[in-house]
């Protein structure tokens, strides 16, 4: 199921106010963005994800798996950012600044840095599978779709990724 397959032109459907979507799924999307990108880029990716979602939202079919939909958008935003093709943040203007505390707090945690380095070192499919299965709590079927493979392959990638992280952390602990 692709994002476009979730869309429908009908308007008779009843969707909850978008605010509910942000309140319910904002923290998960933030966790995913932070795992995919550094803290500063994660804030941009979070905003871009929800902005894109807001734009498409009126055409979303009710009953869609909202979390999988949002994580799919975040996945694409992160790919854009990593390629450096993301829309650059618009001139600050009257926009509220992201408080420095957000960027700073992530820097404080060296565990955060170690984990990101370990995650980043994984092959892309393993990294994606670990993040989408365990941090976003998507099903293996959803992870498989997101990574353009199968549920079986996603399950294997997630297991391999976790095994690899475990190995690295065991090594790191000995150092």
């Amino acid at each position, binding site marked *: 199921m692709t994002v476009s397959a979730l869309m429908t032109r009908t308007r008779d459907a*009843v*969707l*909850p*106010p*978008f*605010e509910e979507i*942000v309140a319910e799924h*904002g*923290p998960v999307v*933030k*966790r*995913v963005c*932070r*795992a995919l990108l550094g803290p500063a880029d994660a*804030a941009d990716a*979070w*905003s871009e994800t*929800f*902005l894109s979602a*807001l*734009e498409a*939202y*009126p055409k979303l079919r009710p009953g869609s798996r909202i979390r999988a939909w949002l994580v799919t958008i975040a996945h694409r935003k992160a790919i854009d950012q990593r390629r450096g093709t993301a829309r650059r943040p*618009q001139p600050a203007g*009257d*926009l*509220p*600044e*992201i*408080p420095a*505390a*957000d960027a700073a*707090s*992530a820097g404080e*945690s060296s*565990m*955060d840095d170690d*984990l*990101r380095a370990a*995650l980043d070192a994984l092959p892309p499919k393993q990294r994606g599978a*670990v993040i989408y299965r*365990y*941090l976003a709590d998507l099903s293996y079927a959803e992870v498989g779709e997101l990574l353009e493979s199968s549920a079986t392959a996603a399950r294997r990638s997630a297991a391999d990724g*976790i*095994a690899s*992280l*475990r190995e690295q*952390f*065991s090594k790191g*602990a000995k150092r």
Partner: protein
Amino acid sequence: MSDKQIIDRLTNAFTDVASDGLHSRLAALAERQGLLDVSYRTVDSPLGLLLLAATGEGLVRVAFNCEDHDAVLAGLANDISPRILRTPRRLDEAAHQLDEYFAGKRRAFNVPVDLRLAHGFRRSVLEHLRRIPYGVTQSYAAVARAAGNPSAVRAAASACSHNPIPLVVPCHRVVRSDGTTGEYLGGPEAKRALLAMEAAAA
């Protein structure tokens, strides 16, 4: 280290519970890009917590606590657009004027209103209500006449009791010909309190 420990460690490392201004940034971006169809906030009042909602055109809904704000927002998502975010900024002025009104310092509201939730005769009634001055009451019969249909007294009463923008569109100033207060979205006691407040200040 077990798989579960690895997963817990990952989850903890990337979970940030701090409130960080992301939401207000999203709202500002959405507004700038024309993606914010309805914004809302709540405001405290002597009549309880009020929900204020606005479109780009103006104040579109004022809801009393007894109406169930979640249900009201769900209704707006259905009737106007689900692109709804809590964004105080667009409603600061309306909230401020309501504060002044309840403090007895304001007699007329000067904020744009969007009457799209009322149609036909009901809308004519609301447009007339906006011209009833502070501290003055009118009968439903007089309102029906002023709105262009003297025989539609019951419809005028219904338009008042379904007014989507109470307080700002002062349906509380319309009373029964026998002097009793009649129905009100916020309850008859709220209506009596408003009339007493305006009578005292007028």
